[in-house]
């Protein structure tokens, strides 16, 4: 069940936004559509919601073919990056909107709105206007508004994209906890790999209108299917003729069996983490190798800028051949 997408194509003029997308999103899960801007992930989300129509292919939501069903009757909750608040209505009225459209009894609407405002921690703001709320509060209001109609799926388009880093992190944790409570099938679009890795049960990596890989956060991180996925999910460097993550490199000041050796030519400390650049002595490798170690490791190994070091992949490290 959940959402079943098959053979979806979408073009905007000459631009191919999506090509031949087949995807099953499981019921009750929290799925991230992850990819760079312009990769087609938002378009896919809007097609699921019915805000955009696909050129070909079908969409099924909870076993029902909704390909030709207008957005109004898909019973989908949608949250926009820039809140899309009804500016002239109070917070409570915003949340009540979908229920009023459905002509529910007044008492029921009031009870439901109170419940939802409590769920998103906005009880005391019920009579404010959206303009009087902070960005994070506005987005929580938008979420309550989308949840009010008891949607069969909840879709969020870059929901935290307009917020500053701290609020973003809070809302991310909060969305995770909310989902554990509400259990509605949820799909959110993000270009932030950390957000996807932290919040989602499963991640769909979309690039250039195609699905690159589908999997759990661990799958994607440990077994990237392509160079794109490897580099998009985190930092990556070239060690010899392999692509590898900078923290998966074993570094030593003592001569040992190594792929590459050379002096430490750059030293950047960011909090607990130290980023090194090692310039290989072997002239075949022109690019410096990026290595990340923790501060305590650096102290234990007695590393300093200019030291000659030997590098090799650490045990169990994932790597891909360079293209």
């Amino acid at each position, binding site marked *: 069940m959940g959402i079943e997408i098959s053979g979806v194509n979408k073009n905007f003029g000459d631009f191919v936004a999506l090509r031949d997308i087949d995807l099953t999103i499981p019921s009750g899960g929290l799925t991230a559509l992850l990819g760079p801007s312009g990769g087609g992930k938002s378009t896919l989300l809007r097609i699921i*919601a*019915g*805000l955009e129509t696909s050129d070909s292919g079908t969409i099924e939501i909870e076993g029902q073919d909704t390909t030709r069903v*207008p*957005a*109004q*009757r*898909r*019973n*989908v*909750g*949608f949250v*926009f990056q*820039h809140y*899309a*608040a*009804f*500016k*002239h*209505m*109070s917070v409570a*009225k915003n949340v009540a*909107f*979908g229920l009023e*459209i*459905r002509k529910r009894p007044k008492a029921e609407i009031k009870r439901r709105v109170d419940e939802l405002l409590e769920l998103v921690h906005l009880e005391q703001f019920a009579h404010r206007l959206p303009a009087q709320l902070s960005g994070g509060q506005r987005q929580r209001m*938008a979420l309550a*508004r*989308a949840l*009010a*109609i008891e949607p069969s799926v909840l879709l969020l388009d870059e929901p935290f994209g307009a917020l500053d880093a701290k609020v973003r992190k809070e809302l991310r944790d909060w969305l995770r906890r909310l989902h554990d409570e509400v259990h509605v099938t949820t799909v959110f679009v993000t270009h932030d790999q950390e957000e996807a890795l932290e919040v989602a049960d499963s991640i769909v990596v979309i690039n250039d209108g195609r699905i690159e890989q589908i999997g759990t956060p661990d799958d994607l991180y440990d077994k990237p299917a392509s160079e794109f996925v490897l580099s998009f999910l985190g930092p990556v460097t070239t060690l010899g003729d392999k692509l590898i993550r900078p923290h998966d490199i074993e570094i030593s000041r003592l001569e040992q069996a190594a792929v590459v050796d050379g002096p430490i030519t750059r030293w950047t400390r960011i909090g607990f983490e130290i980023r090194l650049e090692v310039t290989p002595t072997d002239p075949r490798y022109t690019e410096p190798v990026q290595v990340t170690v923790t501060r305590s490791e650096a102290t234990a190994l007695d590393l300093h800028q200019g030291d000659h070091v030997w590098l090799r992949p650490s045990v169990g490290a994932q790597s891909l051949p360079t293209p």
Partner: protein
Amino acid sequence: MTIEQLDPAATVRTRRRGRARSTLDRPAAIGLGIGVTWFSILVLIPLALIVFQAAGGGWGVFAETLGSSQTAAAIWLTVRQALLVTALNVVMGTLIAWVLVRDEFPGKRALEIIIDIPFALPTIVAGLVLLSLYGPASPLGIDVSNTSHSVFLALLFVTLPFVVRAVQPVLMELEPEVEEAAASLGASTFTTWRRVILPSLTPAIAAGATLSFARGISEYGSLVLLSGNLPFESEVASVRIFTYIENDNPAAASAVAVILLAVALAAIITLNLISRRVARRD
């Protein structure tokens, strides 16, 4: 009159500032002084003089002027036609603004500029245009000269841009996402219009309507050629004032002027109240 004055957001801002306690420092006080002096010389003193002149004749002049059925008919015709025109402008102006903001079509730029022509054209030129098109020698075979329709037509022509220009900037700031949100919550296109778009546009529409009505009751140049100024048929209040002056009866002229002034004030207040009520209904 500039388009900036039509911006309802600006009105709201000024209103808020007015409510706050005085923050006048010396340069601001000088600025305010100059502003008020300027406004007084140009607007307040002449207005006061008109009221004074009319009142100088006592209630007798008012009663006599209004008692003249010709003048009463002229005032009623003016107000009625201005109301009709404003009502039509509210609908058509909003529609044109919508098309200009939301749709892309060839010639959009040109239309953007042409919209302002009725507003920028010297009114007597507008009158001439209307006379040649809808007068006795009409190439279209439509002759409305010497009828009340001519007044309606002339007012419609000169007041066209007001609502369009008031609504346009507000519409541009309205995110399409808000309509999409309403749709995803199950609202039909009509409901979205009524509950989401219209309340956001109402202050702007009201501002445009106010200007359109005010221009309507004061119009002279564009209709004087086509209407023929027939008493009880196509004579408007401003023509009536002109006649009173020509007949050396400034007190009666002032009386009509004061009545028009009162009507304009009433219109401004009413539309302001309506727009506040609609905007706050939800």
